[in-house]
């Protein structure tokens, strides 16, 4: 009974917070203007003023969006455990399986430290290698933080583009790896692993039971990521008025054809999460980098990383790792060129 009252209270608190959220988000622009021009008494039109205004507006905006989405994704994720995804993908055939694995990759919680148990679990359940790879590509590359930061800084078109092209890469790359029949390049011991059955420990939760998971996700993710967002936007604000518009144009602009492969080459070994890289990418674009090149750089940094490869080396032989990195990089390159061509 006590628990029930507490749950009801949580729901009301959440509803109240949502209304406050909507109000703040709606009035953010006039609020920022009031703060910079009236309260701080800064002179309109000056470089420094605009830099400060940029930060005072962008930082709370992105943080607000992030908190909201992370909260809901935290709740949604309680419905998708890797164990469930594994059962769903067992025995799926190619292509349809690749599509499903890539989509599940978006919603299933994933961190590079759990790449190995995921891989082992999938293989043991009889999920084909190519489908497993579709999951391993989509899962880190497409996540709520990347999507929301892209939306906050570039608008919904870029965010949707990122998700769709990311999915296409995950599906096709996984499909190709499946067709190449590379099972021989998986370490032998992987096939000997026996996995126990823990399906009876699946927690049964009511909807209000899931709310705390959303709150925990906000505490954990926003608590860790806000500093990078702040730094990124501060750099962006600083660069905003001071660095010449087409500073990056020669190196990362459309006219330089080599810019796409070059930024992938730089991006693959780099390891960073979306929160750190996207504010930087927004600066690059503002200073003349083309969208395709910037997108390719971002995908390479978030989707492929040296630490993940080193972890995967435990279960995959080197040729398979190179094939995997090669195919995904190639996919990212096509996306980069395509966008430079279209936009």
């Amino acid at each position, binding site marked *: 009974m006590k628990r029930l009252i507490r749950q009801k209270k949580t729901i009301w608190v959440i509803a109240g917070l949502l209304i406050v959220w909507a109000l703040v988000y709606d009035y953010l622009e006039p609020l920022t203007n009031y703060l910079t021009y009236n309260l701080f008494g800064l002179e309109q039109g000056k470089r420094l003023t605009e830099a400060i205004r940029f930060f005072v507006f962008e930082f709370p905006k992105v943080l607000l969006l992030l908190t909201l989405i992370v909260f809901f994704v935290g709740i949604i994720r309680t419905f998708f*455990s890797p*164990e469930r995804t594994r059962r769903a993908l067992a025995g799926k055939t190619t292509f349809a399986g690749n599509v499903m694995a890539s989509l599940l990759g978006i919603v299933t919680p994933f961190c590079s430290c759990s790449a190995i148990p995921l891989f082992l679990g999938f293989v043991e359940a009889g999920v084909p290698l190519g489908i497993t790879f579709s999951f391993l590509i989509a899962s880190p590359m497409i996540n709520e933080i990347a999507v929301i930061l892209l939306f906050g800084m570039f608008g919904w078109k870029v965010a949707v583009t990122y998700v769709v092209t990311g999915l296409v890469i995950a599906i096709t790359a996984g499909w190709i790896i499946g067709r190449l029949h590379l099972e021989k390049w998986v370490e032998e011991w992987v096939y000997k692993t026996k996995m126990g059955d823990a399906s009876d420990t699946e927690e049964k939760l009511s909807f209000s039971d899931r709310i705390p998971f959303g709150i925990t996700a906000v505490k954990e993710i926003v608590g860790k990521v806000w500093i990078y967002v702040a730094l990124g936007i501060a750099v962006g604000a600083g660069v905003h008025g001071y660095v010449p518009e087409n500073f990056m144009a020669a190196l990362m602009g459309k006219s330089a054809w080599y810019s796409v492969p070059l930024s992938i080459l730089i991006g693959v070994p780099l390891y960073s999460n979306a929160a750190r890289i996207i504010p930087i990418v927004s600066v690059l674009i503002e200073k003349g980098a083309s969208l395709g090149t910037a997108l390719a750089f971002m995908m390479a940094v978030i989707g492929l990383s040296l630490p993940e490869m080193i972890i995967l080396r435990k279960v995959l032989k080197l040729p398979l790792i190179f094939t995997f990195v090669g195919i995904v990089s190639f996919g990212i390159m096509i996306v980069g060129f395509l966008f430079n061509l279209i936009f």
Partner: protein
Amino acid sequence: MNILVLGTGCAKCKSLEKITREVVAEMDLDAEVTKVEDIVEIMSFGVMTTPALVVDGKVVVKGRIPDKNELRHMLTK
């Protein structure tokens, strides 16, 4: 009581081990807490998301860190 903390060595796994030991000490339980780091052994429990907690052979939580209250509850059963 036999308690296993399953985890490959990530930060979360360490903090689960820490609070488990704390709760066991606070409740003065006659329990042995062991950390399992071998991935094959972890998989044998059917767990794909670490950290996880196994009490007397049964997986009670996986993929997250329960708070101390919840943990106390799990260990009294």
